């Protein structure tokens, strides 16, 4: 288990730095624009809001946050991977890492994102944050259940000897149903006082950063696992 934990932390550092660098270079300018607009709106309304941290500090905070998230996700990924490995030691590391990463990205990011798309700074009423957090967590929970079901379905349908075409359509059905169920949750009622171009750009960058985070994690973890397996074969040791 510790081998997988270490691998997870290492892959987490890699993907955290990768997503951090990408977001720092491409998304921060967009967020700065959004914050400037927000400040201008507040000034026009005669409000004065004192910020806890300056923007440059928040830029550093962003890098710290993505690195911390990368490592935390890496730890969870490593432990889950270890449990799956124990259940079925035969599957190739690269394949398992990508399957696990795909399911996790779907459940932990894509499902909540499709229901409650990310919004740039300046959108979101502080008064509704508790309600929004609850809705978001509900969507996250539904997404995670869906991700587990995807994994179980992939395995169960293969064991039952379903043809690949039917099996893949079955998986798509599980995914679509998962997303559909989240639409039973209440809508986000906060007004969006920024133009559609900025929102679109921000959401695209949000998706790209998260895809990089999860993709980087899975790929780094898979490559590290593959290397370890090749080494083990070379030494002619049985897998632990």
């Amino acid at each position, binding site marked *: *288990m*510790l*081998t997988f*934990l270490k691998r997870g932390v290492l892959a987490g550092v890699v993907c955290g730095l990768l997503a951090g660098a990408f*977001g720092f270079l491409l*998304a*921060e300018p967009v*967020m700065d624009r959004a914050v400037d607009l927000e400040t201008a709106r507040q000034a026009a309304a005669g409000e004065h809001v004192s*910020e*806890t*941290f300056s923007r440059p*500090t*928040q*830029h550093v*905070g*962003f890098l*710290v*946050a*993505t690195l*911390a*998230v990368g*490592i*935390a*996700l890496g*730890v*969870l990924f490593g*432990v889950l991977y*270890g449990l799956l490995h124990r259940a079925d030691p035969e599957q190739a590391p690269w394949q398992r890492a990508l399957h696990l990463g795909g399911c996790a990205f779907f459940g932990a*990011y894509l499902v*909540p*994102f499709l229901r*409650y*798309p*990310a*919004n*740039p*700074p300046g959108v*979101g*009423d*502080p008064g509704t*944050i508790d309600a*929004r*957090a609850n*809705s*978001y*967590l509900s969507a996250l929970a539904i997404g995670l259940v869906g991700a587990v079901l995807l994994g179980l379905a992939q395995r169960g349908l293969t064991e039952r000897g379903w043809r690949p075409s039917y099996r893949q359509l079955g998986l798509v059905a599980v995914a679509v149903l998962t997303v559909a169920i989240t639409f039973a949750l209440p809508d986000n009622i906060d007004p969006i006082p920024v133009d559609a171009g900025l929102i679109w750009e*921000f959401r695209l*960058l*949000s998706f790209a*950063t*998260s895809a990089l*985070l999860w993709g980087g994690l899975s790929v780094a973890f898979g490559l590290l696992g593959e290397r370890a397996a090749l080494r083990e074969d070379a030494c002619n040791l049985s897998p*632990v």
Partner: protein
Amino acid sequence: MNSANSSTGVLAAPVAQQAVATLVAIGAVLLALVTLYAVFLDQGQLLSPVLGKVAATANYLHELAHDGRHLLGAPCH
């Protein structure tokens, strides 16, 4: 990894190692969950035992992780 120990016939060592590994894994998972909570959901709760009321009004963790929270899709103000 444990083969050196088990081949010497010491049974307790691998068992103890396994228990330690499990504990480390559980500790790491808890730490990871607290980290994710701090970045994505905290509104001053984590620091309030240390800082008192100012933790909620200044919202240090939220403000520091502000951009990451927005970009990675969590609810923010």
